[in-house]
C-alpha cells in the first residue's frame, strides 16, 4: 500500500491555504480489513489526509527546505466515518507559520462520488482538526538524519510536483484556470 492519502490538489495558495481531494474506491486496500463487509474509512486516516494536505502546504511555504514533521494533533472531532464511493475534500488553512513550525486548521467534507465540488463548502463538515507541525531543527536534524530531507522524498515527491503545478496555475482568485 502506498502511503498517499490525497489524490490531487484543487487549490493551492502559497503560505495560506490548500484544498485537496481523496476519492474513495471500494478497491482500496484498507477496506479489505476495515471492515470485512462494512467498508468505512477510519477518522485516523482522514487525519492523515488533512496532515498530508497541511504538511505539503507548510513545506511549500518554505520551498521544501524544512523537514516538516507532525508534532501534535491539538484537537480533532469527527461526525462519522467515510464510505467507499465518496469524495473527501480536505480544506486546510495556516493559522501560524514561523521558523520553528506551523499550525493549521483543517476541515473534511464528504460528497457523493462524481458530484461537482462547490467553491463554498457547507458549514457542516464531516470532521475538523487542528494540527501542529514542527520544523525539525536544522542543526540537530542534520546531525541525526544528514542533509537529505527525508520528509519530502520518495512517494511524496510526485505529489509535491503536482502541488507546485497547482500553485503555479492557481490564479489570484484561487481557482485553477483549467477548472
Amino acid at each position, binding site marked *: 500500500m502506498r502511503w498517499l492519502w490525497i489524490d490531487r490538489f484543487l487549490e493551492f495558495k502559497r503560505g495560506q491555504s490548500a484544498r485537496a481531494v481523496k476519492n474513495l474506491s471500494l478497491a482500496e486496500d484498507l477496506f479489505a480489513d476495515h471492515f470485512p463487509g462494512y467498508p468505512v474509512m477510519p477518522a485516523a486516516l482522514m487525519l492523515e489526509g488533512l496532515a498530508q494536505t497541511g504538511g505539503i502546504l507548510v513545506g511549500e511555504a518554505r520551498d521544501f527546505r524544512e523537514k516538516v514533521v507532525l*508534532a501534535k494533533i491539538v484537537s480533532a472531532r469527527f461526525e462519522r466515518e467515510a464510505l467507499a464511493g465518496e469524495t473527501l475534500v480536505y480544506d486546510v488553512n495556516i*493559522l501560524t507559520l514561523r*521558523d*520553528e513550525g506551523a499550525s493549521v486548521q483543517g476541515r473534511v467534507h464528504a460528497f457523493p462520488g462524481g458530484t461537482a465540488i462547490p467553491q463554498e463548502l457547507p458549514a457542516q463538515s464531516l470532521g475538523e482538526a487542528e494540527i*501542529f507541525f514542527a520544523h525539525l531543527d536544522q542543526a540537530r536534524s542534520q546531525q541525526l538524519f544528514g542533509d537529505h530531507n527525508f520528509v519530502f522524498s520518495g512517494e511524496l515527491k510526485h505529489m509535491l510536483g503536482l502541488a507546485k503545478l497547482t500553485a503555479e496555475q492557481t490564479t489570484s482568485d484561487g481557482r485553477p484556470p483549467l477548472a
Partner: protein
Amino acid sequence: MPSQEEIYQKVSATLIEALNVDEEEIKPTATLQGDLGAESIDFLDIVFRLEREFGIKIPRGELFPESIFQGDPEFVQNGKVTDKGLAELRTRMPFADLKKFEQNPDLTGISDLFTVEMITKYIQGKLGN
C-alpha cells in the same frame, strides 16, 4: 491595556486548549511541566497561541529560553546555578519569580520557573511596552 486578571484568564484559556487540562488544574503557581504535563512541543504550541490570542510577537527563546547556560561552568557548577548564572537568569527572564529557586538553585529545578503566573507577567510586560 487589559488588566492582569483579564490576561490571566486568557492565558488560562490558552493553556486549557493547548495542554488539554481542566480549568481546576490551572492556578498561578502551577508549573507547566510538573503540574500541567507540558512536553517540549507544547511550549511551541503555547507560544503560537499566545501570539494569536494577544496579537503580539514572541521572538524565539524569549518566553521559554531553550538553553540559557549552554554548559558554561561560569553559570553552572556541580549541577547548581552560580551567582553569575542567577544574574543571567534575571536578565533573560525578568518576568520569572526566582525567589524560591535562589534558595536551592539546582539546575533540575529550572523547569519549575515556568508557571502560569510567569506567562501572565511576561504578557503583561509585552503589552505594556
